[in-house]
């Protein structure tokens, strides 16, 4: 079960013809798929696509009613291969993932799919994780579309437009026998908007129809000589068909006056930013009425030569607005204009930055520079443009820069991965620093303070594989960390299988927290929860045994820092050969709390005996050296300034968000830190025996305490 439930929002997916949908972009995309009559949907979670997966999972009933299926795929490669259902059959299908990372994984299948071509509409929805807030390398999906020849849609960030493009995208795919990619940026996925709905469509031809009437065609299989034919088909047949469809159906859009000396050619996704920039320059109103002609490429590949020729023919100059590098559109435009002999000058990355977010500010500067060069009269009287730079130079603000601490994401309160890294840190103190390969997932936060563990990350599930070279006898062994998500995605074969086969001596830690946690708590093969639509509870330990690993240790409670440390030490020092595999299992605390909290509250309410725990710090015992925090970083373990002039440093303090995971106590004990920590157990609805025992004990304790309090007071008076 995912972290966020879309059960209510899913009801909006049933809206019919003429009704208005209001909600998040991701839901609008899902609704568009249903309106397009898809038979199957798949994909792999990852921001900004996670919510799409969650929505689809929550919409399983609705999909079933429509005769369609949804699968959370094992990887993006699986999802891409799923589209092969559309090769021979008139089945529409869509898959989704985070890009470019997911597209990298899917490339093999995508290239094969695009070579042979499709019969039914096939669409890949990519969440373009580029710019601010991105968690991956900064690349463009555009390159993948070009190299495999798949049409790339980049609709304006407007739900009406996105929904229309999805519907037309399936038609385009069928008209040109080519898979289509739809690119949506992070903010667009999370954008709240609205559109007028159509009825959902039940596919006429079903998956069952296909299974019962199988078809094959040797010409569609990528093997010579068909592969050579595919290339010619792409050039001579599919490309012209696509261009014809895009032209006649007007997938691209024109705004502003028909005539003008200068114009702007832009990716659909850049539209809102460009309008805002023009507004700052006094060239558009807030409603998009622009004085500069715009050619909006809702399809960014292929470029429609005849359309851009028409747009550029009477112009002195055009500006290409295209985010990210390299400047594929600008290059394509140069070729088109050069071939046709149209003399319009091209502006683009000469006035706009080559890389990074195209914010309204960046676009304003770029458009202004372009207009200053090509048509300064349009800038008129130049009303002031919003600009914060003078303020940022003011002394108090400049000083603030030194003060505000960075706040990267980190492990949650009570995270079961924290004690694993605390143990690694303790082992590091004993045995020295080791080479650690990190992986993608929450556990990657180990690379930041306070742990500072992990040297590289090479891609999802590839932590173990990236220690492959360190397969030599040496004084120290390599350590690789991988999550359960990465393990099932590919790490079982690419990492563990590889290490077994090549007799790698390193240590491999598999962090098993029962969910795909970093992406929002989706279920995976080894999830412990029951899921009526999926098979869960498949053991990671059995899987690694199955692939041939011999030295395997399972830790059932990662919070046991002492055991974790001892196991790591053993793995690093044992004489046994081959990979040393540690499966460290405890439930993701975010998901556990979501699951357990209501149960506990209900139990207390109904009068059941419940022990609620929380940790605390005795502030007069704590000396404020913060050694505990350097082995934790838990949000609930924080600082408190004491109102005592004798004390200089703030002491440790645990706030009421503590979930009593136990890490503080375990670490204090294992690292021999200090006796400041205590765990407080409050028994709600205590039994009679609880009360009698506590009553009698406390009576005596209070007697002793009073005695000592009196003695202490007496000592003071004696002075």
């Amino acid at each position, binding site marked *: 079960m995912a972290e966020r439930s879309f059960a209510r929002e899913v009801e909006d997916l049933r809206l019919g013809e003429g009704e208005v949908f209001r909600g998040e972009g991701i839901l609008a995309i899902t609704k568009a798929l249903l309106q397009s009559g898809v038979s199957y949907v798949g994909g792999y979670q990852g921001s900004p696509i996670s919510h799409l997966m969650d929505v689809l999972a929550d919409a399983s009933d609705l999909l079933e009613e429509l005769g369609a299926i949804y699968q959370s795929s094992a990887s993006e490669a699986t999802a891409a291969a799923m589209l092969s259902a559309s090769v021979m059959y008139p089945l529409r299908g869509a898959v989704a993932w985070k890009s470019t990372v997911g597209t990298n994984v899917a490339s093999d299948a995508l290239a094969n799919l695009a070579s042979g071509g499709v019969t039914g509409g096939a669409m890949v929805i990519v969440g373009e994780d580029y710019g601010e807030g991105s968690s991956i390398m900064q690349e463009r999906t555009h390159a993948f579309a070009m190299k495999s020849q798949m049409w790339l849609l980049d609709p304006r960030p407007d739900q009406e437009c996105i929904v229309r493009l999805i519907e037309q995208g399936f038609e385009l795919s069928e008209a040109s026998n080519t898979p289509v990619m739809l690119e949506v940026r992070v903010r667009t996925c999370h954008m709240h908007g609205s559109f007028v709905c159509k009825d959902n469509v039940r596919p006429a031809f079903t998956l069952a129809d296909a299974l019962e009437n199988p078809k094959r065609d040797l010409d569609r299989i990528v093997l010579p000589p068909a592969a050579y034919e595919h290339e010619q088909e792409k050039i001579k047949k599919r490309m012209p068909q696509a261009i014809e469809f895009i032209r006649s159906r007007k997938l691209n859009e024109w705004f502003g006056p028909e005539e003008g000396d200068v114009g702007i050619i832009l990716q659909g996704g850049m539209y809102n930013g460009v309008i805002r920039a023009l507004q*700052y320059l006094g060239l558009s109103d807030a409603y*998009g009425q622009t004085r500069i002609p715009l050619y909006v490429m809702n399809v960014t590949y292929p470029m429609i030569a005849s359309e851009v020729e028409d747009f550029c023919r009477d112009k002195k100059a055009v500006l290409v607005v295209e985010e990210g590098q390299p400047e594929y559109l600008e290059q394509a435009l140069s070729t088109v204009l050069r071939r046709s002999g149209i003399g319009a000058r091209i502006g683009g990355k000469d006035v706009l930055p080559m890389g990074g977010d195209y914010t309204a500010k960046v676009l304003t500067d770029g458009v202004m520079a372009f207009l200053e060069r090509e048509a300064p009269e349009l800038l008129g009287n130049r009303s002031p443009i*919003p600009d914060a730079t003078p303020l940022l130079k003011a002394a108090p603000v400049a000083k603030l820069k030194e003060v505000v601490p960075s706040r990267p994401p980190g492990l949650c309160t009570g995270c079961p991965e924290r004690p694993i890294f605390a143990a690694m840190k303790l082992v590091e103190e004993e045995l020295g620093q080791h080479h650690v390969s990190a992986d993608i997932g929450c556990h990657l936060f180990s690379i930041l303070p306070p742990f500072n563990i992990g040297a590289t990350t090479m891609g999802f599930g590839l932590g173990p594989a990236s220690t492959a070279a360190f397969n030599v006898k040496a004084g120290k062994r390599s350590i690789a960390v991988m999550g359960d998500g990465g393990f099932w995605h590919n790490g079982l074969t690419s990492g563990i299988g590889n290490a077994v086969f090549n007799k790698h001596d390193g240590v491999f830690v598999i962090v098993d927290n029962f969910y795909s946690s970093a992406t929002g708590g989706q279920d995976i093969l080894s999830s412990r929860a029951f899921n009526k639509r999926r098979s869960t509870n498949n053991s990671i330990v059995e899987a690694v045994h199955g692939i041939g690993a011999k030295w395997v240790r399972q830790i059932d409670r990662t919070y046991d820092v002492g055991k974790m440390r001892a196991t790591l030490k053993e793995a690093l020092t044992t004489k046994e050969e081959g990979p040393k595999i540690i499966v460290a299992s405890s439930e993701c605390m975010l998901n556990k709390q979501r699951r357990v909290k209501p149960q506990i509250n209900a139990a207390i309410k109904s009068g059941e005996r419940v022990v609620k725990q929380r940790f605390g710090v005795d502030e007069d015992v704590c000396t404020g050296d913060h050694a505990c925090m350097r082995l934790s970083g838990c949000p609930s373990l924080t600082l408190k300034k004491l109102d005592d002039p004798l004390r200089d*440093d703030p002491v440790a303090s645990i706030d009421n968000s503590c979930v009593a995971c136990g890490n503080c106590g375990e670490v*204090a004990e294992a690292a021999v830190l200090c006796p400041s920590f205590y765990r407080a157990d409050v*028994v709600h609805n205590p039994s009679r025996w609880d009360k009698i025992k506590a009553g009698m004990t406390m009576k005596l304790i209070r007697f002793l305490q009073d005695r000592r309090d009196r003695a202490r007071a007496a000592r003071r008076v004696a002075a």
Partner: protein
Amino acid sequence: MRDESVHLDIAPAGPATERPISIAIVAMGGQGGGVLTDWIVLLAEKQGWIAQSTSVPGVAQRTGATIYYVETMPPLDGRKPILSLMPTGGDVDVVIASEYMEAGRSILRGIVTPDRTTLIASDHRAFAVTEKIAPGDGIADDGAVLDAMKVAAKRTISFDMNELAVRNGSVISSAMFGALAASGMLPFAKDAFIEVIRSGGKGVEASVRTFEAAYARALAGEDGAAPAEPVALAPAASDSLPAGVASLPEAVREMAAKGWNKVVDFQDAAYGREYLDLVERVARLDQELGGGRHEYALTVNAAKYVANAMAYDDVIRVADLKTRAGRRARIEADLGVKGGQVLQTTEFMHPRAEEVVGLLPDGLARSIMAKPKLFDWIDRRVNKGRRIATYSLGSFLMLYAVGGLRGMRRRSYRHKLEVAHRDAWLEAALDAARRHYALGVEILKCRRLVKGYSDTHARGLSKFDRTMAGIRMISDRKDADQWARRLREAALRDPSGEALDGLVQTVSGFAEA
């Protein structure tokens, strides 16, 4: 505003057009920024406006800094406005910050500008990891945020919205919504805001209560600030203080009283007398050195740090503190333990042979230390993690007994060590003060480096030693006090002492030169 362009003598191409109201919400993952964003969108839509919100949650949902952005304006003749997906510096009407340093970060992002922005900020702090892990006081300076707000924001509404929300049984998003309503930046009636909250699901009443409280608090402005907490008085009434305190210079008395209290609480009246003797000795020297000119800094710091040195952290003190009645009362209040509920606490102790042997009388302890095999044998018996249920009878009696070993403390090996260390440090400080008053003060302050238990304590001592060694190298310089301060601050900066070692290196360079 920037205007470097050449002005052309022609009319503007178009009228300066109307812009949407823009609201940026800066928050940390899990703080309800998403809920607040949805409320604002719903509010605007209910009034017939077009509203667009965006966010970049990504992995920032895991406690990192994140930003939500809303733009809204009415449609024009059925035409929808084209709204931006991210804030532009210099063009944001309202910034709502759910934490004080995040308010600071929003200023650094340029989205708070004096001609336009109303900044609504909760002034409570959630500390970042880098602030927490400093061995000293790594907490960022709030004053810097306040100073920047004064120049950056057109108007600021700032109070502890977190505390207000918790007090009213809700979460910060309701309080921020209330402050937004009170700001008047959205031209909608207060009832429209409340209606939006009521259309939601859980905790509606508490949310409305919090909204109302925040609304009132924001309107009240500075005058509405809650009265400052009464300053905690020294635990002891002045009449029970010994005469020695009263005879000290005025500037020293409060610190000396607190110090005396701490020392007597740690041991007994005789120990308190010993403390005052030391402080009085420093005070006499201070007089000779004309300490009045320095507000008796030497004596004030001696009063502070000698008390800390004398009330060192040993097993007896820990056991005593853990078994006090006041301690249990504090935990009960902290957790809100109600009658009919039963409280138990578990201590996480990890004693080593050092602690046990340290308790023994000096001679005996030394003879044990001289026999490594015996010492190791003791360590093997003692050195392991022990979890002790404080309020079960057996464990309590054990802790209570250890807490009562005060009688043997002054003969113990640990005490002899502490006294020797204390005397050497104090002598060094006073010695320096005679030649360079400020340097003496700085040396006293180095006591701050000695803290923690077991390994941490050992590391602290080693840093103290290295710092003192560094100070000795430059003690003849005129600016020795400044170097001493730099050395101490370097020692507090990182746990490994790398910064300190680097500075000692620099300092030893001067010594050679």
